[in-house]
């Protein structure tokens, strides 16, 4: 098999993952790390907020349905605080309206569960390229 291409041009590019389901969280982290991308994981919105003050990720993979503060609420908070991170919403619920997801993250900025690693990598790679291009 051909050597793997570098997925992201910027070696400092890293992804933050917020999902309350442990096995999904670890699977997401594992596939990104295998692709050579730096990953930090958080179980709740609060956990992310308290940790992410130091440095902000370029990409934030965010579950819509979190216990406590929801993904949308966190997103609103971040926008209000002037965050520039690109957000990828993930959801396992059909009743989350597509319009809302598209309004917040654009037509390609969300994934409905179940999705596979390639789909995630494609979205993350696109964000990474967009962030490095001037």
């Amino acid at each position, binding site marked *: *098999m051909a050597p*793997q291409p570098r997925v992201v041009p910027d070696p400092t590019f890293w992804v933050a993952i917020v999902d*309350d*389901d442990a*096995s*999904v969280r*670890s*699977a*997401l982290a*594992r*596939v990104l790390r*295998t*692709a050579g991308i730096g990953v930090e994981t958080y179980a709740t919105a609060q956990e992310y907020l308290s940790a992410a003050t130091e440095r902000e990720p370029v990409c934030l993979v965010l579950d819509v*349905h979190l*216990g*406590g503060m929801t993904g949308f609420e966190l997103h609103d908070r971040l926008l209000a605080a002037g965050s520039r991170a690109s957000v990828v919403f993930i959801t*396992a*619920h*059909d*009743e989350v309206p597509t319009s809302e997801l598209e309004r917040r993250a654009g037509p390609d900025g969300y994934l409905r*569960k*179940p*999705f*596979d*690693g*390639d789909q*995630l990598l494609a979205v993350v790679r696109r964000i990474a390229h967009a962030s490095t291009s001037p």
Partner: protein
Amino acid sequence: MTAKFSVDQTPDATPGPHEGHVMSHRWPLPTFRADIDGSRPIDLGRTLRVARDAVVIALAVAAAVSVTAAFFSTPTMTTFFLPSAVVLLAFLATKTRAWWGVIASAFVGYWVASAVAGAPADAWGGSLATAIATPLIGAAIIRRWLRPASELDSLTWIGSFIAVALLAPIVTEGAGTWLVGDPVPPVLPPPDGVADDAATPWLVIVLANALALLTIVPASLAAWHAYRRFAATPSRDVRGPRIVEGIALAAACAVASALILRRGGPLGHLDAVFLVAPALVTLWGALRFGIGGAAFTLFVATAVAMYDATTRHGAASGFATSDVVALQLTMATLAVPFLLLSAAATDRRRISFRCTEEEDRSAAAARAGGVYLTSFNEMTDTLELDLALGESLGLSASDMDRPNWWWRHVQPDDARALRAFWAARQADENRPHLDFRMLDADGHVRWFRSRVHHTGSDMARSRHGALVGTVTDVTHLKHAELVAVERSRELAHVARTAIVGELAAALTHEVRQPLTAILINSQTAMRVLDARPHDPEAVREILQQLAADGRRAGDVIQRVRGFARKAEPERGPVDINDVVREATQLVRHDTIRRRVEIRFALAPEPLVIVGDRVQLQQVVLNLLLNALDALAELPADAERRISIETTHAPRSGLITVRDTGPGIPKERQTAIFEPFVTTKRTGLGMGLAISRIIVAAHGGGIEVESEPGAGAAFIVTVPLGAATSR
């Protein structure tokens, strides 16, 4: 066809098929209706009819009095004065407005009689007035107070009548003596020796009247009633043995009369003891033929004795000259107790007949209702069962011949329980009845319900013993129960399927999580395998994660499958705490998603009941879903909390599901348990109705406590330990 004697008969009054004095309240009593209220318009035809009736009666009375006077030799008339009784009967047979006719004809009758007897005309005067006044007073009292409400043969009636028969002559003759002076016996002077004492003639006349009234009036009325009964149902009322007995009684009367009349008996002056002979005959008449029989024999005996005494013939001749009053008193003291005795005997027969009738009626009612009597004799330790139960099972008489025949037909499994139930002597409140099975003659199972009642120690000495009870055929009830159980089982399943539908979104989510992890991890594994150098440790870790997520998805499916399965209810020991935990597990994700806090306060010890785990889960789950829906109505910033509590009550376990929702108004708290009552946009509104059925099948109950604005609490109570229903 106007009633000649103006005797009205109610059209529906038909005599019973039984002996007359027994069913006397249904006799076609002649009402002798007195139309004295004046409310009816008087029409000419009616008046003419009354006049014609009066003439007929007048002639009849006159004839009767004349015949009486002519038949008896004249002194007899004074000691046993028949005309007063005849005139009284004439009054009774006549409407009140026609009584003037009776009075007139009686006057004529007396006049004719005195002429026939050759009595001096000046002997009449006041005594004639009293001779008519006595029956008039008697008839008036009887008409006013003793007819028609009273019965001829009741003790009350005959007692009252005796009083009237004694008092009426006393009053009239007393008044006559006071007004006219010397009481002059009608028709002829008194017998020898009587006139010596001033008080005696008065007493002779009083007793002569009283004796006639006491014997002739009841005998005639009884004969009249008997005739009416016979006229109404001639075929049924004539019975051979009865006629033979009547003839025998008449013959005995004749023999007794002959004993009295016998001249020159072997005992000489002690022949008076033969006066007792009529007493035996009267006893017979009283006991077997009631008042009619007693009065008839008394009449014959009195007439014979008086004739004997005045003609100085036989047994009563010793009385004749010196003391007629003594003979009269003898006959009167014979008459009064025997008349009372005859009424008492009739009363007793009537009561015993009514008892039999009541027994027949209750037996018929019991059979019609499938209720059979049982009794348990503690002394002999035997249980008796109504033979009708055996008949209803199709058993023959020979099948039920042996004692305890029915144990062999009780299902062996139930026999022990039944014995224990009866041996427990008294039904405790938890076991008001016991259901058991019996096999009928065709081998079909029939259900019966046994109830027992302790009647108290007095009954213990009776034949049946102190424990009585009933056995009721409840086969149809049991079949209906089985059908109902089947229906509610199906309904519960439908409701569970509906719940699964409600949970579909949450369950989908629960499966999608591990599925996502599996998809991602499997691709990652391939990348790790492709990478150089190999990292087998990383692959192993991923594979382990894959397996775990696969199991997790499988568990979710298994849970749903177990809940929605359509299986026979499985009764077994179930810990309520487990039920609560499992049910909560199914809504776990919904509670997180809706940001509802769940608080547990479970009893530290297991609360084991006998029941169906899935159905109980359904109840708890239904309450949880209702609570979640109630909380969804709250504003976004309100507190959303469900507390689930299990507690150990003395004999039952309690599950309380409390929410902080808007609460349920008082007026709706009953309605929510009805089927198809719902406030939700989705769902059938069957949840609480089915929950209640399920809980009831576990011998428990479900209730709600709620104050609007302060949330709602649903409390499920289930008895611990034993199963209470099949």
